[in-house]
């Protein structure tokens, strides 16, 4: 695995308390570099930094109106760079929300709870694994 470079992770949530808590959780691990954004717009504006994974809140237009919601942000990001893995976060443990996220090509869906960070970290591990496998596969394909 590519250990020399840290994974760049974007966290996007308008709930600043939760956002900070998640950031603190990530700070413990030396493998991640983390940037936080309060809106989808800010996140998209910074896509040039090439994040490996984006953790995106589903309800971005909660209290503030006239901003992108989570799914709109997700679509915009996928339009710009479809290779970025996106994990959706939501306070709602609802099948409709989960299905909607999956339909819009999110990598996974995590409910905001005490264990959210652990789940997200685990999913990031899986993403890393898949990326590595894809890389290996292209290597083998090239050689064939």
């Amino acid at each position, binding site marked *: 695995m590519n250990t020399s470079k840290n994974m760049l992770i974007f966290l996007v949530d308008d709930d*600043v308390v*939760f956002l900070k*808590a998640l950031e603190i959780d990530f700070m413990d691990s030396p493998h991640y570099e983390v940037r936080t954004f309060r809106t989808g717009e800010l996140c998209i504006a910074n896509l040039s930094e090439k994040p490996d994974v984006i953790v995106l809140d589903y*309800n971005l237009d*909660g*209290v503030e109106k006239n901003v992108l919601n989570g799914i709109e942000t997700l679509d915009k990001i996928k339009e710009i760079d479809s290779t970025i893995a996106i994990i959706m976060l939501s306070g709602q443990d609802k099948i409709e929300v989960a299905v909607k996220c999956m339909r819009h090509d999110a990598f996974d869906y995590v409910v905001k709870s*005490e264990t959210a960070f652990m789940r997200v970290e685990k999913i990031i591990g*899986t993403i890393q694994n*898949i990326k590595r496998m894809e890389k290996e596969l292209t290597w*083998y394909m090239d050689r064939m």
Partner: protein
Amino acid sequence: MHTKGSQYARSLIEASLDPLVTISTEGKIMDMNNALVSITGKSREELKGTNFFDYFTEPKKAMEVYEAVFAKGFVKNFPLTIKDYKLTDVLFNGSVYKDIEGEVLGAVVVARDITEQKRIEKEMVEAKVFAELATEIAVDAKREAEEATKISSEAVKSKQQFLSNMSHEIRTPMNAIIGFTKVLFKTDLSIKQLEYLQAIKMSGDALIVLINDILDLAKVDTGKMVFEKVPFKLSRSISAMLHLFEPKIHEKNLILIKEVDPNIPDVLLGDAVRLHQIILNLVSNAVKFTATGSITVSVKLLENKSNTVSVLFSIKDTGIGISASKMEHIFENFQQASSGTSRLYGGTGLGLAIVKQLVENQGGLVSVNSAIDIGSEFSFQLEFEKTLLEAEPIIEIAESEIEINQIKVLVVEDIPLNQLLMKTLLDDFGFEKDIAANGKIAIEMMALTVYDIILMDLQMPEMNGFDATQYIRNVLKSEIPIIALTADVTTVDLEKCKLVGMNDYIAKPVDDRLLYSKILSLIKKNQLNLLPQLEITEKAIESIVRYTDLASLLKRTKSNPILMMEMISLFLDQTPLLISTMKNSWQNKEWDLLQSTMHKLIPSFSIMGIGNDYENMAKELKEFAETKKEKVVLPSIIFELERVCNIACTELMEEYQYFEKQIKITIPSIIPIP
């Protein structure tokens, strides 16, 4: 001259490696070169005058060559197979030759051997097919690998859950079986009854050992095994543990020799519990397999580096020994030196596997030397960090100096059977005891009576052991020793016990000697700490209820005051705004806004340790905003949430100032404040 020229031409023709043949207009072979002779394996005389087509696998096609060459005057690259011993593939090129008058005399045909080209062509086709297959396999493999990752992560999760459940489900009834068996021993029994009871107890003990072993191995397998670094006294720790074997060694009339290198530093940093487990397994094997002679436990200093010491432990017996052929297998799961051994000596064969895992996971090495009928020596090497810290007082088995009659124990336990068992055990120890059926009752009882120690079950109705302990530590501000009684011994639970402020734990089924010594040592430690017990009045319980609990956030931030301040100030900024939006949207019946406001408010509750009750209230309100099913309680919920959040903000403001002070205390040493 003429003959010399034709001789030269002939020699060129003979030298050609491609078979060359001339055929008459009737298709008979007239002349040939050496290459044809050797490829057909027939002599020139035999070939001459025979039919040209007879030498090919498909005479009909050969006929076509013959016809074509005489019809068109030439033939080019015509494929045929020569009927020789290996069926050589050839390409034919030929043309007719004429006399001076232009009369066709015959045809000269050259056959080019293309076996090599054919082989390469075939290999290329095969390689192509292979490459296509490999691509398909790689794509399949990728899909399978992705699938497998998903499945395995699920499997690990369910395995852990299963083990945790199994541990709990088996231990709870075993607790009663073993506990009451021990109690029965103390009653009047006939010799027969005593014998039967002995059998029950032995089987029960064996079962518990087996469950523990399996759980340990599973923990190592899933990487859940965590090694602590706690200061401990090596020599005392080993003596205390060998103590356990004294009765057994006495019984078998063996000699126990202990040799501890005096050069080993007194206090070391390491995982004393795991070290116990390793030595325990090895010594119990030694005792089990030795009929006469001695068991030597020796500890030697191998290397003394600046920060660490390397220590060699060895356990030597004069037992039955292990044959060389079995030696390499004894560290595998469920292996004993011979299948006959287990019938004779019992045991599961997991002990050495655990020893190996425990040692190697700490970066050490295990080795074994043995000779049949002479004995075995198991040794392992571990590295410990040196420390200047004092060792925590280890739990010594049955070392009683305190007067035990005045000890008052509060047992918090909901299952009547277990209540009875604890009552019987504590009666035996001569302790006074009270029983509370859950955490809530326990707290009420603590207001009335002063106890020396609490034995706390974890899973209880009304208020569980974790919540009760948290309440006792944070609200009652009491430092009373608390021992958790747990049937579920996964690492997660033990961490949680420590986190909420429990002093120790004891796994069910409760070992009475261990319980006794843990109670005594904790009470002793508590008295040494000389912490004055707070007098708790009912009033105090009422007034010191706090709505926020930063314990989990402190853990998250590793008690970093700057991060704590950041979190608190974000909460203080965000929450009042959300609360006023909540109230307004309720009044204006803007249900969508109410829902998203609650949505944003809820996660911060658990972050700031605001109780579950309030989080559930908030969830109820959010649910209403979604479904619009009005409930009578809603206005009171809104009122209550506002009240709690306001108090939480005040509390957090105080905490903020506290952290601010902390920073001011630490920073002046670096930056002098003018």
